[in-house]
């Protein structure tokens, strides 16, 4: 079959290119989810209007070029191209079938033929199959010696390119985020194509090279990253809609990093984590001077946020105290129960601090030098969207949380947390006071969540029990696991994906959660260590049999394998 690889790739690529040029949809709908725009003309329109065709052209050409150009690790490069092309082709074809009422929409109907979608799917599948027939090669590592300024320059270019890639991905198919009926498939097509690009870069060793470089120039990377984050409002994301979305992502990313301390470092499963965010939000709301607040005082925001963090931290210690006695699954149930208690208490307004089902609305807007945080802002002639100050506040919050996580992880305390995760009994036998440290992990995580909650309440101008339900806890946990346990970029990426995807997939309203769940299953199946994995975690999951051991409750046991080895050695 190896001899077939090249012809298959060539044929597949050409079919993809041809498929992209053919019409994709046969008919114009008269009813459907968008009666006034209910046509599939977009897919029948000339080439220039539909970006997905462009992606397919590029991917098809890339398949041809990479097939002939001498390349190391050709198999991984072409697999990335193949998956990308298949993704783009499938997404659009399925969308047309779904919205166009069946296979007729992509084949023949009313005398119109449209085999573009089918051709592209088949071509991409052949290309991918061909790629799989290539001989396996070792992973390419590139590590050229460059002067430091050259490395800085490359990092700068890489981060800016990443920023542009992200903004383009998010705004693919429309800047407003809601008006275009095709935004769903457009976004997914772009994501698929961008994924292929990143996959190729990964295959030729560029991503590893850049991440090693950023490791070497840690401070510089952080500065550039912060600068990129500050630059976001000046890009195509600089409108009200995206300011709100990115601010939400930021708040959830900060919370996810906090959860990462508890789950990713100390290995304690917490299913009620969002309650701490809720506590922070209600504390801040009550100290904000809102009319519905229990206390008629208005503390400065910074002070209120600190109080919110401290109160949440105290609750963290209380919830964490059962960890002294309870492990693993049982701890998860304890935390789950705490989360539910919080929701019930705040829903029924027990204690009168949460406003019950009325919530605490109309939290006064924050202001700085007389500018309200919800106002728009003009800097150097550039009109920035409203809510931009909240966005900046949230950038500061995320930076703070990252600082806390990063420093704690690389310290005596962080090592002890990881040791507890790996093997609690041995950690104790090595002199780690596991009880205190587990409570400290809960406290730190809760404090960060409380801070995030305080910002969240002000941003939304409301603190309602409804924002802190169990499904939020689960989504946060999924963000941490999906992104990669124990890493900062992982938590941020996970939060971004989990809170952006539902927005972008509005298109598929009914199927949205289905797709979402499916994507989670696929990622967990093929990349259990998460998208951006911790070095430790990666090793751990490479070989599953080690992971179970640390959760075992027995104090000392004799694994059969070692006992066997002992017999053999004696």
């Amino acid at each position, binding site marked *: 079959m190896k001899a077939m690889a090249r012809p298959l790739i060539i044929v597949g690529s050409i079919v993809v290119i041809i498929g992209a040029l053919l019409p994709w949809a046969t008919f114009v709908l008269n009813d459907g989810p968008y009666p006034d725009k209910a046509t599939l003309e977009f897919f029948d329109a000339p080439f220039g209007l539909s970006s997905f065709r462009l992606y397919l052209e590029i991917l098809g050409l890339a398949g041809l070029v990479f097939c002939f150009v001498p390349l190391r690790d050709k198999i991984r490069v072409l697999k990335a191209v193949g998956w990308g092309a298949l993704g783009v082709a499938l997404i659009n074809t399925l969308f047309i079938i779904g919205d166009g009422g069946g296979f007729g929409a992509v084949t023949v109907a009313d005398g119109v033929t449209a085999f573009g979608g089918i051709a592209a799917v088949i071509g991409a599948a052949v290309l991918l199959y061909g790629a799989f027939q290539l001989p396996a090669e070792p992973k390419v590592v590139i590590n050229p010696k460059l002067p430091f300024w050259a490395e800085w320059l490359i990092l700068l270019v890489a981060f800016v390119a990443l920023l542009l890639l992200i903004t383009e991905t998010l705004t693919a198919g429309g800047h407003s985020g809601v008006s275009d009926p095709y935004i769903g498939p457009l976004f997914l097509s772009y994501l698929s194509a961008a994924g292929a690009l990143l996959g190729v870069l990964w295959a030729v060793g560029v991503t590893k090279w850049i991440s090693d470089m950023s490791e070497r120039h840690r401070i510089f990377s952080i500065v550039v990253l912060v600068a990129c984050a500050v630059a976001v409002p000046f890009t195509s994301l600089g409108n009200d809609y995206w300011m709100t979305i990115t601010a939400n992502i930021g708040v959830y990313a900060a919370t996810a990093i906090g959860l990462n301390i508890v789950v990713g470092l100390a290995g304690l499963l917490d299913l009620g984590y969002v309650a701490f965010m809720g506590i922070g939000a209600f504390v801040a709301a009550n100290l904000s001077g809102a009319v519905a607040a229990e206390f008629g005082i208005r503390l400065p925001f910074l002070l209120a946020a600190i109080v919110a963090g401290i109160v949440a931290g105290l609750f963290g210690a209380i919830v964490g105290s059962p960890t002294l006695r309870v492990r693993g699954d049982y701890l998860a149930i304890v935390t789950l129960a705490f989360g539910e208690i919080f929701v019930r208490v705040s829903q029924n307004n027990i204690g009168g601090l949460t406003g019950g089902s009325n919530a605490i609305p109309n939290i006064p807007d924050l202001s700085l030098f007389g500018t309200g945080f919800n106002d728009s802002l003009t800097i150097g002639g550039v009109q920035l969207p409203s809510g931009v100050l909240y966005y900046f506040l949230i950038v500061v919050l995320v930076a703070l949380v990252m600082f*806390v996580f990063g*420093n*704690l992880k690389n*310290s*005596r*305390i*962080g*090592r*002890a947390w*990881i*040791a507890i995760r*790996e*093997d609690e*009994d*041995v*950690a*104790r*036998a*090595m*002199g*780690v*006071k*596991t009880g205190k440290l587990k409570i*400290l992990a809960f406290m*730190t995580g809760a404090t960060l969540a409380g801070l995030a909650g305080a910002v969240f309440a002000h941003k939304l101008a409301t603190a309602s029990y409804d924002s802190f339900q169990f499904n939020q806890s689960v989504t946060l946990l999924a963000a941490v696991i999906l992104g990669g346990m124990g890493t900062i970029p992982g938590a941020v990426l996970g939060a971004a994906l989990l809170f952006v995807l539902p927005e972008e997939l509005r298109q598929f309203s009914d199927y949205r959660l289905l797709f979402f769940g499916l994507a989670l299953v696929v990622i967990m199946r093929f990349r259990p260590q998460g998208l951006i994995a911790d*070095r*430790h*975690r990666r*090793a*751990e999951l490479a*070989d599953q049999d*080690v992971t179970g051991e640390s959760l075992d409750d027995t*104090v*000392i*046991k*004799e*694994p059969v394998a*070692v*006992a066997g*080895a*002992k017999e*053999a*050695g*004696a």
Partner: protein
Amino acid sequence: MSTPVLQARDVSMVFGGLTALKNVSLNLDEGKIVGLIGPNGAGKTTFFNCLTGLYTPTTGQVLLKGAVLPGDPAEVTAAGVARTFQNIRLFPSMTVLENVLLGRHVRMRQGPLASLFHGPSFRRGEAAARDRARELLAFVGLGKVEDELSRNLPYGDQRRLEIARALATDPAVLLLDEPTAGMNPQETEAARQLIFRIRDLGISVVVIEHDTKFIFTLCDQVSVLVQGELLVEGTPDVVRGDPRVVEAYLGKPPEEVEAELQAVQEGETP
């Protein structure tokens, strides 16, 4: 004679209706190596767990330098008793260096705030810990693999890493639970030399081992446990010659064992 550095006085351990240890006593003098042998199920590891605070003895006491040891493993380690495990229990996905640094944990004083802000004293402490950890890795012969994940090390190296991690706690007493299990003769010999070098640092050592040749050529003092009771204790020569030991532990006719031990002795004495 000075007080023993580690002293177990009439330690008994009862699990439910099962008596695992019955009035076991042990004295470990400073700078000595004591061996603990006995058939499977004799209670050796249970005794170790009593010494390290993992179990609280039902009756009896364990004293370190004359003071009763606390009942918590972390505090026992802080007091100066470190151990390794029969089945290797490293932190598998931490690096070699991080494993040893974790051993330093108990001797470091950086609290949460210092760990959060990474001030100058934090960095000094961290650098000192790293230096010490590297020193210990070089001492056990793992100087070149500090960035490997510990789970990727070969078996014998994992055992040595466990010893380095235990040494990182600056112990007065080191307890080794079957340090040569599963090792070939060369590795066993290297382990013996390593234990001698540890003793030369002034650390007292207690070794559990099945390999009687190893124990008799290593230890200053040997105790034999059978069914939770101390059968014999004394110098290797005394223990080796005791017919009860031969019968209970070795299960072979004395002449045969004697011949075997003779051969070993001739092989080992310089």
